[in-house]
């Protein structure tokens, strides 16, 4: 025999652990220690069977803790006090006796603890713990119901298995319902917990300014920047456009918001993408170069094709974009050339002599760009993130001495030289490349893919994308498109596709998506032709009906049974219903039934039936009719 209470207590500890383990990495030292101490002391007391900590002691211990953390609560620090109080309350409850009431409180606190861990990290691990917790709580609630009925209740092992099985069955049945309710339950436009969300400390890989020479080396960050759901693209098109830098002081490039009007002319094929950016402090929305339109509320589009969010991008979101790849955007009219020719007052003499060389070599924009391209290609420049030129003369050092640098060096110097040579241009910050995840059908772009390139305005053609980094002597090694993904990368991509599905279908699922789905379903329904549907579904319906009929027939063997068997079955059913006498599924003799029923109709029935069947002969038609008549009379409502 197994004591229900012991099992419920064990489950209570496991549930407590499910709530606290995901929270451990985020807890401050004090609540963490209290949590561990509470767990251990509770376990020791439960093993001994005596509880020294009385409920009133525990409750009074919580009050000062609550007051302390309530004073800590502020708009700028909302999460830590709440989470700490939850953890300490859980610890206190775990340290006490596991009565039904306190066990229920532990379950609720564990749920809250797990939910609060989602404020720090919303990974699929959360889903695993949530699933585990839901299953365990369902079983524990069933056990607590038994414990509540009789705290000393014991059941046999076989019965316990049945109880546990029934407890498990409920969440299993609830999962399909949950899957139905999740997409259709109304969503709020803003997450309810948003006020508790801590400000994001993450930034995207590219900065708001481009300043080569500020650091002697840069570190690669493999953290995720965004995912873009779209068909695979040629690698030469994988430029993800973010922001544009249009002013320079010689070393630093910044963006000014007073941008002259442009009239871009889009033609050719477009690529649609669904972008899932990671939360970021930057408000720039990224899309494949060059984005034509971006579907998202409260987004502004600048004249130079930069899309910015009016609010913050600190929570997870999703947007669709449409882009025209290719790297050349035509213009209906000429641009404000002067704006894109802005330069610092003075340029180093070595730079100026190179500029005059460019001007001499090419008469128009196109020729000058080509000359500079060949200068870079043949200049022995190397792409590197180490041993970089620094200081005020960083660009000059890069161009004439070190001849190695990262994309910022290449792009800044290229743009500076172009402007000095009279070709309007600007720097574009974004990302280059990305891993294509075949499983999920999306590009995974990490922050180390951040990139800067140049857009030069060629009179008569338009804005042309030029990536000076690709002119480096070692460009092929750095951006090797032929390298096949290694095992580690494949595993990473597989794991990421899980994360992606989670973000896409759960985290970013909001009112907007709901409305979109409803609209899509509505428009599809409008286009439906009912008669066509009926025709196409008819064979399936017929098949289903046939299967159902067969199943029904198999379940009701009476269709194939003899007249004697049928009438006997009806008789037994009638006896069970009308006389509430157990017929033991036919295991009780007819005469015993007649004696128990003590009813003339029943006795008559038994006499006729037994008179025929017990003597190995079939019922005659008269007898059969009489038996049916008797059954009808037995079922007839009795007059009181």
């Amino acid at each position, binding site marked *: 025999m197994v004591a229900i209470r012991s099992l419920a207590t064990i489950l209570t500890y496991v549930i407590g652990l499910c709530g606290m383990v995901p929270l451990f990495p985020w807890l401050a030292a004090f609540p963490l220690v209290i949590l561990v101490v509470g767990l251990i002391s509770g376990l020791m007391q439960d093993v001994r069977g005596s509880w020294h900590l009385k409920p009133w002691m525990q409750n009074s211990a919580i009050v000062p803790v609550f007051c302390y953390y309530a004073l800590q609560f502020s708009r700028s620090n909302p999460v830590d006090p709440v989470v700490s109080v939850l953890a300490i309350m859980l610890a206190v409850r775990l340290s006490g006796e596991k009565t039904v009431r306190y066990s229920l409180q532990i379950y609720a606190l564990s749920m809250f603890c797990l939910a609060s861990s989602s404020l720090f990290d919303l990974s699929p691990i959360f889903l695993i713990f949530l699933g585990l917790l839901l299953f365990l709580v*369902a079983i524990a*609630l*069933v056990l*607590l*119901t*038994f414990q*509540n*009925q*009789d705290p000393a*209740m014991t*059941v046999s092992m076989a*019965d316990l298995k*049945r*109880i546990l099985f*029934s*407890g498990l*069955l*409920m*969440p299993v*049945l*609830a999962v399909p*319902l949950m899957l139905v309710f999740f997409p259709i339950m109304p969503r709020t436009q803003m997450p309810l917990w948003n006020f508790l969300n801590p400000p994001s400390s993450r930034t995207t890989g590219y900065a708001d300014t481009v300043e080569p020479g500020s650091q002697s080396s840069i570190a690669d960050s493999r953290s995720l920047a965004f995912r873009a759901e779209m068909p695979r693209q040629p690698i030469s098109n994988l430029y993800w456009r973010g922001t544009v830098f249009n002013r320079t002081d010689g070393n630093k490039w910044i963006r000014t918001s007073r941008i002259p009007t442009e009239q871009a002319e889009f033609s050719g094929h477009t690529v649609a993408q669904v972008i899932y950016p990671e939360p970021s402090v930057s408000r720039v929305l990224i899309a494949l170069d060059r984005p034509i339109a971006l579907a998202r509320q409260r987004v502004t589009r600048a004249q130079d094709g930069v899309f910015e969010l009016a609010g913050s991008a600190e929570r997870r979101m999703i947007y669709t974009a449409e882009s025209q790849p290719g790297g050349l955007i035509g213009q209906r009219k000429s641009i404000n050339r002067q704006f894109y020719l802005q330069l610092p007052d003075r340029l180093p003499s070595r730079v100026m002599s190179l500029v005059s060389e460019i001007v001499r070599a090419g008469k128009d924009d196109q020729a000058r760009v080509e000359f500079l391209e060949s200068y870079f290609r043949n200049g022995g420049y190397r792409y590197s993130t180490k041993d970089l030129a620094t200081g005020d003369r960083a660009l000059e050092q890069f161009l004439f001495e070190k001849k190695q640098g990262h994309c910022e060096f290449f792009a800044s110097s290229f743009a500076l030289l172009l402007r000095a040579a009279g070709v309007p241009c600007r720097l574009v910050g974004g990302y280059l490349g990305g891993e294509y995840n075949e499983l999920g059908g999306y590009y995974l772009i990490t922050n180390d893919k951040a990139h800067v390139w140049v857009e030069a305005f060629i009179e008569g053609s338009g804005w042309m994308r030029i990536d000076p980094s690709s002119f480096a002597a070692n460009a092929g090694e750095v951006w090797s498109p032929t390298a096949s993904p290694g095992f580690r990368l494949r595993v990473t991509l597989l794991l990421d596709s899980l994360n992606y599905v989670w973000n896409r279908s759960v985290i970013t699922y909001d009112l907007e998506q709901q409305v979109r789905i409803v609209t899509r379903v509505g428009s599809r329904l409008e286009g439906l032709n009912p008669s066509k549907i009926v025709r196409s579904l008819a064979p399936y319906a017929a098949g289903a009906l046939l299967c159902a009929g067969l199943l029904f027939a198999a379940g009701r063997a009476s269709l194939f049974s003899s007249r004697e068997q049928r009438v006997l079955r009806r008789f037994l059913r009638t006896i*069970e219903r009308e006389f*509430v006498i*157990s017929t033991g*599924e036919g295991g009780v003799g007819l005469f015993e039934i007649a004696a128990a029923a003590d009813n003339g109709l029943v006795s008559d029935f038994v006499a006729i039936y037994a008179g025929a069947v017990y003597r190995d002969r079939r019922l005659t038609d008269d007898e059969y009719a009489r038996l049916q008549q008797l059954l009808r009379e037995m079922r007839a409502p009795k007059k009181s």
Partner: protein
Amino acid sequence: MSVTGLAGMYNIKKMIPDLHPPDEVFAGIPAPFRVSVRNIKRSLPSFLIRLECHAGQSLVFPVVLQNAESDGTVLFTFGQRGRVSLGRITISSPYPVGFFTRFWSYEIDGTVVVFPRPLETLSGGGGEESPATGAALRPQRGQSGELERISLYSGSEPLRMIHWKLSARGHDLLVKGFGRSVVAPLVIDLDALPGQGVEERLSRAAWLVQRWVRERPVGLLLGDRVHPAGMGKQHGLKLLRELALYGSD
């Protein structure tokens, strides 16, 4: 919530309770009734089934297997003699999660006859003291008494009655002749019993029936109605039933 609601509803469905009274139920004395519940569901057991009978007596069955019956005993005490309806049984269960208790009631057809509360008495009715056992023995032929005589075998006696030892000495077969102990029947006259009021006299009569019916023939005189003397449990139950229903028909 929907799943637990449905589980709770299905848990108490297709449960047929029953109440089986004992043979003898006396007013004022707790009587053990057998309460059973049958789960006629084909595939699922029911959990935490609570059966509540009249006056609040209840039983809890942690598990009732599918196509099986569970039973237990509850003690019922009835205040008055007479025919009492078995009333209704309420089946309830807090299963699965104890937030709500679902229940439904089942009307049990049938009645139980509650006998008068037995009240010890020395008088057997009819105004005379009850004779001590043996004082009113009457000699009769039989096989249960003392050896009274030896007689010639007539051919009708059973073989085991033949006195083989004596017969061997002579030429005739001799048989043993036994007497039979017969106690004078006790005829209880309700009106002659001591006591204040009919109920008390019925109680005394019930006591007498219960005390003597297994040892001597007991008859009953209820006003004009005469119940002939007889012995045995069934006869006793018949008399007690008469006493229980006295005045109600």
